[in-house]
């Protein structure tokens, strides 16, 4: 019981509820970034990291679409 709440758990629960199409791995990755940087007021570097996650996931989604179409 004791110890901080894991943000990733809350985000995952809501991912399943409001955005089931988003991969759990993406939510876990962004949760880790946000947890690590929650006391950091310089958000430029944080958003750079987030952009990287989004970019990779977008590529994966597009590849998935193509694979789906081909098969």
């Amino acid at each position, binding site marked *: 019981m004791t110890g901080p*709440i894991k943000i990733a758990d809350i985000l995952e*629960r809501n991912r399943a*509820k*409001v*955005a089931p199409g988003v991969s759990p791995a993406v939510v876990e990755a962004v*949760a880790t970034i946000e947890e690590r*940087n929650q006391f950091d007021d310089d958000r430029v570097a944080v958003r750079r990291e987030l952009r990287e996650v989004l970019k990779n996931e*977008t590529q994966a*989604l597009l590849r998935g679409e193509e694979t789906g179409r081909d098969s």
Partner: protein
Amino acid sequence: MIVETLEMENFGPFYGLAEIQLGGGGRPVVIVHGDNMSGKTSILNAIRWALYGVAKDRLGNPMPTRQLINRDAYDEGQYRVSVRLHITQKTSKGQSKFILRRQKRARKADREPTSEEQFEEYLDIDHDGNVVHASEFSEIVAELLPEGIARFFLFDGELLDEYEELVGEGGEKGAAAVKHSIEMILGVPAVTKGRDDFALLEAEVAKKLRGEAKHDEASREATESAERLEAERTDLKDDLKVLNAQRKEVGVELASVEDILSASVSLREDAGALRELRQRVKDLEEDAATKREKRREKVRELWRDALAPTIEYHVARLSRERDATYQKLGKLREIVTRLAGLERGGLRDTCPQCGQKLPSETLKKLRAEQQSLRAEAEDLRGEADEERLNDLTAVAARLRDIAPANVAEIIASIEDDLRRNAASAYKAQQEIKALEERLRDEDPDKALLYEQKRKQYLHLAEELKTKINALGEEIAAKDREIDQATRIIQQHKVPALRTLSCELDLVKDVEKVFVESVDDLIRELRERVQVEASSVFEQLTTDETYDGLRINEHYGLTIVDGKGRDVEVRSAGAEQVVALSLIGALNRLAVKRGPVIMDTPFGRLDVKHRANILKFIPTLADQVVLLVHEGEVDRKRDLDPIASRIARKYEILHPTSSRSEILSA
């Protein structure tokens, strides 16, 4: 994070170098005993100042550097102050060691600084033996213990006041800072900042998409519409920026006016206190003079104590004699009355009432009685003297006035009074000195001038708030319209825009997850805080009829009784126990752990609560430093039960008003 050692130079009452080892090697508790004004708060302030560059006075206002420097050192021309912290931080690979030092010194070493600007700040960092550039100081401190949550670690009376304000009627606004800090320590920023990051990323990707869509014929109309809306939104945002800047300026001015007002209030209070203390010293001096005079008089009467046994003997003798005389006088009065009766009858042969002749035998008896009474009266007249009786009474009374006198006891009691008087006068003089120091170069009448300014700024702030809210609504409406235009572009499914469109959908979905999670997280955290705080409260409270605590949306906690009812009235001690329960719960749930340093935390607690809290404190954190005075924590009774958890004990000695020393106890 553990603060292993604190080194101070000319900080507060600590002249020259002072060092205190706070690391316990597995034992969490360090106790520092010190009288009021000896420097306990300065230890807390030294740690706070070293980390964040801010030390607070008793009202919670930042202290200027001049006031941080030890007075003797300053008078000797040492215009510098510094604090060094040796810190150990647990890491995934073991532990890291940091040495952080903050120093402030006069820009011109040989000239007395007259303003804050004439001091220069120097920061040194050593990380595992490597020198780190000073520009990284704040970042390292934020990593070790962010300032926003420090209030739950560097714990003083102010936190309790703020917390009590939080739970008090209408106190939500005033305690907003505490609520914000609570959410920070619990990890809410991970979600709120995430939500804001994704809102910005969404705007960024949408803008890119619209930029690319310009080249597509089918999307042109929607693109142009979005561009026009964006231009309008940019104008609105520019206006908003201007208003926000104005609001910020007004806020800064208001804060500065409130600081001055608060200082003025304190100044007025201090000036009032100074007047009262001076009057008190005068009263005490007059009282002492009266008592000394009384003592002189009593010393002159000491002979009465020596004569007391003799006088008591004579008083007893005179009293006996007086009682005998009184009785004889009474007897004589009776005889005289009887004789008068006999003589009124004339002892004739016939009864004066009925006229019958008296028998000769009766007449003879009456005459014999008359003769006997006359003889008895004659005897008594020498002794049953009324004047003698009065003299005896008066002499005995005069002697009683003299003894028993108990003059020696009275003198001893006067001397006790004089000692108490001298102690009170000394304490008052010390307080006068401290107040005079604080009031040096101050004008106690500036409050009135600034009250007017405060009202103007408050009015202006309210006007700006209304305008900003209206602009915010306009911008939100534009956002919705731009979003609509962007959807139209996406619906055209232009192949060249496929990647950006897919990225936009993704970023919107993730943003939705964050938006949805903020309230969930806060709700869950509140429930956890309630459970943990109740569990701590059960350990701390001495009232078995209490069942636990109930939390409200501002993290205010209410005691609940066995029937589930709120306990509405609670004592100052109960407030403190509830506040400590919250702090205990927050430490259990915190995303960052740090040393808990408590300044005078037991002031309002009774013996049983204090014992419960002392038992609980070693479990509060890996390092707990208690800065206490003798009346709060008894070295034997209170500390013996937790002796095995105490790493070190110190005592602060305060030989002069401007110097203190830390000794290992």
